[in-house]
Each structure stands twice: as C-alpha cells, then as structure tokens.
C-alpha cells in the first residue's frame, strides 16, 4: 500500500452485484480484516487502475440508505463520516442495479450530498434489452453531475471504464451536492444548522444530528450546538420523512428525462418461480427436500476426501517416525504437530461443501423466499424469518451464524436467535458424529437407496433444530424484554449463481477457518501431546517399575512396550486430569480417556477426534500406522473386555455433543454480541446440564 493509492469505498444496495464488481476489480488481491470494535468483516482489495495508479478498495456492507437500522449498516455511516485523512475515502463508488435504478439512486443522492467525489456504476446492463430499458447516458451524467458508467460485472464488461472513471473523478476532485435539502424543507432551520461549522457539508451535520454519530474531529462547542437540534424529536422525524420524499421527487424528475422502461418486454420469470417457491404446500416441501439433499451430499461427498486426508496424515506421521532419529523432537512432530495439522485439514471438505450450498442459495435469491415462508412460524417461537439464515449457517459454524443475526432489528428476536443457534449441528460436531456413526451404525442401504448412516446423521441434525426451536419457545415465554419489532426483506430477482462469487466465498470461509480455528486446534494438539507425554515425578519411574514388576510374567518386547505406554499415559498430567473427572462421567458410559477428549473439546468440539487420536497413538507406543477410526475401533473397555465404542456409549456421546455448549470461541462471540457475560454463562451451564441429563438417560436406557 503506497501513499499515492486512491482510497475507494464501494457502496450499494444489497443484491446489486456489489460483490461481483469487487471481485472483478480486485481478483485474488483480497484480504479480510475487522472494523475496530466490531466484528463485521471488512473486505479490502487492491485494484490496478492503470500502469501507474493503484486503488485500495473497501467493500462496505450492502445498505439501502445511509440512515442505519442495523449494526452492519452503521459501518457505512461511520466510514463516510470519518474526517481524518488516513481513513476517509477519496472516491466513493456506488453500484446500482439497472432494473431498480430509482431506489438505488436514493442512496446515491445521500452520498452525493456528503460532497465526496462519487462514481456511479450502473450494473447488469446486459439485462437492459430483455427488460426493455433505455438510458440516456450523457444526459444522466449531466443531471447527476457525476461520472456514470454502465457495467455488467458478471460478464466483466465495463470494468476498465470504472477504473478510468475513478481516476478522472479523483483528479477532478469535484464534489457538489445533488439535492440541497435546505431550501425545500425548512430553510431557516437548515441555515442555522449549516452555520454551526464550515468544516462539514450540511448533509454531514444533518446526519450527525439524526444519527447521533459524531466524528472525532467535531469540537466540543460544535457538538453542544448540534445536540440542541436533537431536542425536538418529532420535528427530526418529520424532516427525515420530508427529506426522503424530496429526494424521490428529484430522482423522478431526472429519471423521467433519462430512463425509459417498456413494460411489455418484461418477462415474468420471477412471478412463475415465486408461485412455486412460496406456494403454501410445495414451497415447504421443496425447502425440506433441499435441506435433505444438502445434508446427504455433505455426508456422501465429504467422506472420500476426509478418509484420504486422514490416511495421508497417518502415513506422513509414520514416515517421520521411521525416518527421523528417535527423540523428543521426532515425537513432537509425529505425535503432536502432524496429527494436529491433519486434524485441521480434515474439516475442509465438509466446510467447503456446506458453504458452497449456502453461497448458492444466497446468490440465487432463494434465501429471501425462505425468510418469507418462515417468518410467521419463527415468530411463534420468538424469532424472525431472518433467524432461519443463522440457524442454517449455524450448521457450518455458530460464529458467523451469530454474527449474521445482526440484520434482525428486534433485540428480543435477535437475542433468542443468538441463544439457540449453538444447538444447530455445526461442522465441528460433524466429524465427531461421522466417526461415531461409522463405528456403531452399520453401512447399509434401506429401501435400496437411503444410506442408514446418512439417515442417522440427518436425525441428529433434526434433533439439533428441534432443540433450538423448543429452547426458543421457552425463552420466548420466559424472557421479559419489550422491543419494537420491525421487519422488511427485499425479495431480489432470481439469478443464476456466479461461479466466481461462489468460489471466492468458499475460499474465504475455508481460509478463515484454517487460520482462526486451525491455530487453536494445532496449538491444543501440541499442548495435549506435551501433557500426555509428561507427568509429575512418579511418571519418570514408570518404565523402570513396569519392567521390574513384570519381570516374571514373560511378556514379549512388544507387549511390554504397550504396557509401559499405557501406564505412562495413565500417570501423565492429562491422565490424572481425566481420572479426576472419571467418577462424574462414568454414569454416561465414558472412561477417563473420553473424559480427556471432553475437556479438550471445550476449545472446539472437533478436537475430540484429534484428542482421542493423540491419546491412542501415545498409548499404543511405537506401532503408529493406524487411522483414527481404526484406533478407536480397536480400543477395548478393560471392565467388559469388549469394544469401548459400543452402541450405548456411541449414542450417549452423540447426544452429549448435540446439546453441550463446548465451544469457547462461540462463548466469546456471544459475549461480544450481547455485551455481557450473563448470556454466554447461561448458555454454558444450561446446555451443559441438559447434555449431562440427556446422555445419562440415553446410556442407562440403552445399556
């Protein structure tokens, strides 16, 4: 990033192809950061405008207006009101949808009044012929007094023009308001407002008053004067309404001269598809089948690459062990680091497939129909049609899902959604379920096509959703929070998903998983290895004592080695920890080794599999060629002499994982989103208690 780079803020309504344009402008030169203080993702990218000029492009959240109604949208306002040179944008690039230009121009007119150089990119112009739209571009440029470019971001058309327009706009640095709100509403009032400070445009001052958002550069004296304008709230509200109507009048005047639609040409694809997807019976049937298909394919498609990754890492670990000189470093590498990396990479197939589906559903516009279908039902449970998106993306990971609740305007509906989202089966539970299912459920087909293992998995997902809904209902009836509920959702046009957008979305999700969750998982694997191969002073004598004690029992060298290894594990730090909690978890069917895995699962549920793998490979001494599944399958319960992972234990474990709040990262996010420790603690203990009781009942009935 150099000083000469042009800082461009990319703004637009949702569903205008803003992401497509961002991807076209920046390609793979993207990175995701956080806005200070909030966890909304900030996407930045570098775009080569010309051979000598680069631009840093910030992709702001989609919004219909500068006046925010959600946290996401307030980011836009905050970015635009910044006055310090470092962060304020040099040029604003507004993306508009050609089919809905009128509404898109409202946001444009607000931005124009901030008096920052602005480029308007009208997107999806390849649809103009089909929709019967004609635009007088040169007149529109003149009327809007700005650079206007026609583009088709998905087809990569007009991108060069956008780049050139950004440069021209930056050089000219010309910025004038479009609507001049003062004269039309209450000239005296707005003249007084403008007199407060010459450093800001009138519209900026107006936004500070109406949105109660003051940039750092505002002096104490100026702020006092601005606050005086806030006293008459009903007047503010009335003037905001008037302002919006006035803007639309101006836009209508301009469009009348420059924009013609021949309505007879519009084809009714939307209407036909809506009749199917929002049909009172077929709409729901389709939705349920879609979910079924998604879950079946996650299980079917992910198994092969997961087994491959699992097997490959077992081999690499074995290779390292047999080819490197024996010692602590080799042990760390082959028993800690390599299985740890494997434990991270193994989730990539599932996460990729799930986000592939979610990205496609969002891109096509189908997700909004689901919101429409589900709102009334969800409201009975104290939630909102928009809660469906967090609950579905919760099947990938509760963290982005809880962040996705920010679009819900009502606090009570949002809080309930946050509290119950961790019940949905996240991808971290999936490997736990997958490995347990493959151990205890036979791999057969019922009715000739339904995979029984897949069906059990589907039941677990259903259990998660059902619990979430029931918990929401209880919260709805017990929480006494009064909030005004407001709900409006745009129903976008149906579109074929763009391969490029879906690809970028999936890559971004995988990248953030590997970097964020992966770090924790890898670090824990190494810590675990240390705790499992070290112990208090008595630990060092295990080898000597065992050899002495068994001297007269004629063990083979191999048997002796295994015996030493497992006694060592029992006496290690982690063994002691597991033994301590064993009495508590014994009624659920677990031993101390599983207990260790339960403890480490607090970092992230998926660590369960890696932990058992580490424990069993330490326990089995040198013979380390088996995959995780083989190791678990051959584990014997010394009390019964039979397999440790039998049906009752497996079921009890799956029930425990379905209910327990075992993810520290999620707790941290809930704290951040609710701004108190109260709610995450309620989740931790409430869900933990439920998990314990439910697993207890499951195990006692089955065994």
């Amino acid at each position: 990033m150099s000083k000469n780079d042009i800082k461009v803020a990319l703004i637009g309504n949702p569903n205008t192809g803003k992401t497509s344009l961002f991807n076209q402008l920046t390609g793979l030169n993207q990175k995701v950061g956080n806005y200070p203080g909030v966890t909304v993702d900030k996407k930045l990218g570098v775009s080569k405008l010309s051979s000598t000029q680069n631009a840093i492009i910030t992709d702001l959240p989609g919004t219909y207006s500068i006046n925010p109604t959600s946290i996401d949208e307030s980011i836009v306002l905050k970015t635009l009101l910044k006055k310090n040179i470092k962060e304020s944008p040099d040029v604003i690039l507004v993306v508009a949808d050609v089919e809905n230009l009128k509404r898109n121009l409202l946001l444009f007119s607000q931005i124009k009044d901030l008096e920052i150089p602005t480029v308007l990119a009208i997107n999806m112009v390849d649809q103009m012929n089909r929709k019967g739209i004609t635009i007088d571009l040169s007149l529109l440029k003149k009327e809007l007094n700005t650079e206007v470019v026609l583009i088709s971001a998905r087809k990569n058309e007009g991108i060069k023009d956008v780049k050139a327009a950004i440069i021209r706009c930056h050089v000219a640095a010309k910025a004038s308001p479009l609507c001049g709100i003062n004269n039309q509403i209450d000239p005296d009032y707005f003249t007084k407002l403008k007199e407060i400070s010459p450093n800001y445009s009138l519209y900026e001052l107006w936004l500070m008053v109406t949105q109660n958002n003051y940039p750092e550069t505002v002096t104490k004296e100026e702020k006092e004067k601005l606050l005086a304008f806030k006293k008459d709230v009903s007047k503010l509200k009335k003037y905001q309404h008037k302002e919006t109507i006035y803007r639309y009048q101006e836009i209508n005047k301009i469009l009348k001269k420059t924009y013609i639609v021949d309505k007879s040409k519009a084809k009714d694809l939307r209407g036909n598809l809506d009749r199917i997807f929002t049909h009172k019976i077929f709409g729901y049937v389709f939705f349920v089948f879609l979910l079924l298909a998604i879950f079946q394919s996650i299980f079917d498609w992910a198994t092969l690459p997961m087994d491959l990754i699992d097997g490959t890492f077992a081999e690499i670990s074995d290779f390292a062990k047999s080819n490197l000189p024996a010692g602590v470093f080799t042990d760390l590498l082959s028993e800690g680091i390599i299985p740890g990396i494997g434990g991270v990479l193994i989730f990539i197939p599932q996460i990729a497939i799930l986000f592939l589906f979610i990205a496609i559903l969002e891109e096509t516009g189908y997700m909004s129909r689901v919101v429409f279908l589900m709102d009334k039902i969800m409201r009975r449970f104290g939630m909102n049609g928009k809660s469906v998106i967090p609950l579905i993306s919760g099947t990938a990971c509760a963290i982005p899902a809880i962040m996705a609740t920010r679009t819900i305007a009502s606090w009570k509906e949002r809080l309930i959604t946050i509290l119950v989202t961790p019940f949905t089966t996240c991808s971290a539970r999936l490997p736990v379920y997958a490995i347990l299912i493959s151990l205890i459920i036979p791999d057969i087909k019922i009715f000739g096509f339904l995979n029984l293992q897949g069906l059990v998995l589907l039941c677990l997902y259903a259990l998660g959703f059902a619990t979430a809904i029931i918990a929401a209902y209880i919260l709805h009836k017990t929480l006494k929070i009064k909030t005004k509920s407001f709900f409006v959702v745009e129903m976008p046009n149906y579109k074929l998903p763009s391969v490029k957008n879906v690809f970028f979305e999936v890559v971004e999700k995988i990248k953030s998983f590997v970097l964020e969750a992966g770090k924790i998982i890898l670090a824990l694997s190494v810590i675990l290895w240390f705790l499992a191969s070290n112990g208090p002073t008595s630990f060092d004598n295990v080898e000597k004592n065992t050899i002495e004690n068994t001297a007269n029992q004629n063990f083979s060298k191999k048997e002796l080695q295994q015996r030493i290894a497992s006694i060592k594990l029992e006496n290690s730090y982690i063994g002691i920890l597991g033994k301590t909690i064993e009495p508590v978890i014994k009624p659920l069917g677990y031993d101390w080794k599983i207990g260790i895995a339960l403890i480490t699962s607090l970092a992230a549920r998926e660590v369960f599999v890696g932990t058992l793998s580490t424990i069993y490979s330490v326990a089995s001494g040198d013979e380390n060629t088996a995959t995780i599944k083989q190791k678990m399958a051959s584990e014997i319960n010394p009390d019964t002499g039979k397999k440790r992972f039998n049906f009752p234990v497996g079921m009890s474990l799956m029930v425990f994982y379905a209910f327990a709040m075992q993810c520290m990262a999620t707790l941290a996010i809930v704290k951040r989103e609710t701004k108190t420790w109260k709610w995450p603690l309620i989740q931790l203990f409430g869900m933990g208690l439920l998990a314990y009781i439910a697993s207890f009942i499951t195990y006692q009935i089955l065994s």
Partner: protein
Amino acid sequence: MNTIASLHKGEIGYISEESLGFIPLKLLEMGCLPGAEVELVQIAPLKDPLYICVNGSHLAIRKETALQIQILKSEIVHV
C-alpha cells in the same frame, strides 16, 4: 378504511397521502411513498408476511406494518 393488508392477491392500490407519518422511514427509503402504486404480489402460507411490489421494489413486510399503511383503491388525480 383500506390498508395494504386489505388488498387481495394481485390487486393494486395507491398509498394515501395521510399515511406519511405512519410509514417507517426504512420503508419510505425503499420506495414505499405516498401516492405510489402498490401491488400485493403474494401472501405467505400463514397469511403473514405480505409480499408487495412498490416503485419497483419487491418487499416482504409483516401484516402489522401493512395495517398501518392506508391505501386508496383508485389513483389520486392531481389537478
């Protein structure tokens, strides 16, 4: 008194000027303006929310909001 909620599926109405104070700012900004033509496109299976088209915007709003917005069944003629 007619509101958006009293429209039938496929029927068209015109938002009355008196509604201005009752339309949430957000809806106003999305094109739900006094005088605008509003079509009830679809009603959700459980009679709520309503799917409307106004000023080129396709929006889903709840019945409680729709009940606040008065409409006329024929266009106001400005002289």
